[in-house]
């Protein structure tokens, strides 16, 4: 097709879209002034337009293959069982530690990202943040390991549901909600005392073990480590729009408000 001809197709097609749907067929016929092949070409495109639905409307990166480790893959002593979750920066697997004979959760970078120094540093920071907090409501970090260039965090595997799934089934009984809330507050208090701000606390990141023991706060992927050891009580949580490392800090002094320390607040919550 020549440039000139395509320019006509294009302008008639675009002109037709300005017309009401039922008038387009006739409008095109008139615009083409008896050029039958041109009529057919534009009609064909209009038909295709009418049935295009959401064709190409979902960006292509959703098709990007992440090279998820398959069940049965071995990383040293760990045998991957299956993927159990996915966050902005890593994939979480259920794995079996064949040396110690227990199940663990492994959080690893997908292979396309495992060479990125920045993301490796983030994963290290995440491991360190969570490992420094000792609290029954924070999943225990066992180790940070690297095997065949694959860096991963090994932590306690919590069998259970997320708080998101639980509240999806209807509101919690007040006494249960209170019990869960108090334990989460206590866990955050321990984190803040260790100088760690979670910054991504949400129902998806709170696991409720099947065993019936208290909730577990997980995913310190965007946690912030402070040097002072304590954190102002009203520190603003990070908005979801800024989980990438290196973005300008969202924490402004003005958002920190009252300089009350967390331990004081915790004692009142558990009293």
């Amino acid at each position: 097709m020549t440039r000139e001809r395509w320019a006509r197709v294009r302008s008639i097609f675009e002109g037709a879209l300005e017309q009401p749907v039922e008038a387009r067929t006739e409008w095109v016929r008139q615009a083409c002034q008896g050029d039958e092949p041109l009529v057919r070409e534009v009609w064909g495109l209009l038909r295709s337009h009418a049935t295009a639905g959401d064709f190409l409307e979902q960006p292509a990166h959703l098709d990007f293959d992440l090279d998820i480790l398959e069940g049965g893959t071995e990383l040293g002593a760990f045998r991957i069982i299956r993927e159990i979750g996915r966050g902005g920066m890593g994939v979480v697997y259920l794995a079996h530690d064949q040396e110690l004979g227990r199940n663990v959760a492994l959080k690893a970078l997908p292979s396309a990202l495992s060479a990125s120094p920045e993301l490796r540093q983030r994963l290290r920071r995440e491991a360190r943040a969570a490992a420094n907090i000792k609290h029954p409501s924070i999943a225990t970090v066992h180790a940070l390991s690297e095997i065949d260039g694959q860096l991963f965090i090994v932590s306690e595997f919590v069998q259970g549901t997320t708080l998101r799934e639980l509240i999806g089934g209807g509101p919690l009984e007040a006494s249960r909600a209170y019990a869960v809330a108090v334990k989460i507050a206590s866990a955050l208090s321990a984190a803040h005392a260790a100088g760690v701000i979670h910054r991504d606390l949400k129902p998806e990141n709170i696991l409720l073990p099947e065993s019936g023991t208290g909730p577990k706060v997980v995913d310190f992927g965007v946690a912030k480590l402070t040097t002072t050891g304590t954190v102002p009580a009203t520190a603003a949580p990070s908005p979801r729009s800024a989980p990438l490392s290196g973005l300008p800090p969202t924490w402004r002094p003005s958002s920190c408000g009252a300089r009350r320390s967390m331990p004081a607040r915790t004692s009142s919550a558990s009293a």
Partner: protein
Amino acid sequence: MQQHADLMPLVYDELRRLAARYISRERPGQTLQATALVNEAYVRLAAERPREFANRTHFLAIAALSMRQILVQRARAKRADKRGGAPQKVTLNDGNIAQVPAADIDILALDEALERLADVDPDLVRLVELRYFTGLTVEETADVVGSSPATVKRQWALARAWLKRALEGEASAAVE
């Protein structure tokens, strides 16, 4: 080379802004793909011979092409895997994972159709690279190519109609 090295942090910043945009509008299960794709585009751009970007528009056009190439190469490798009899990857879906089924698009067929479209209307190809392969919205695309959102919308409608017809033509030819 020096110049190239100086430029790369800026390139990465720009790519990161792209990733941040994806993250702000997508569900958590999808952000990792976007991050991975952007990261791979960065690695490729950094490895290529030094080049200068005239401006942000030029850079985004190059990055968009790079993302298209990455996705096409991966699709090609996957097809080769299947033909070679290599074990096929099994995706294990767990109820906990926010899995959003990606639209069922044959990237390789789309790529070939885009090659043909390039002979007819190269502007539409660039538009598809920005909208589909880079994931920019209509408004963002308009900003990058320097036209109005209304114009981008019209061109996008034409590009989708043309490509859909091209892909369906192939599918029906294959059945016959």
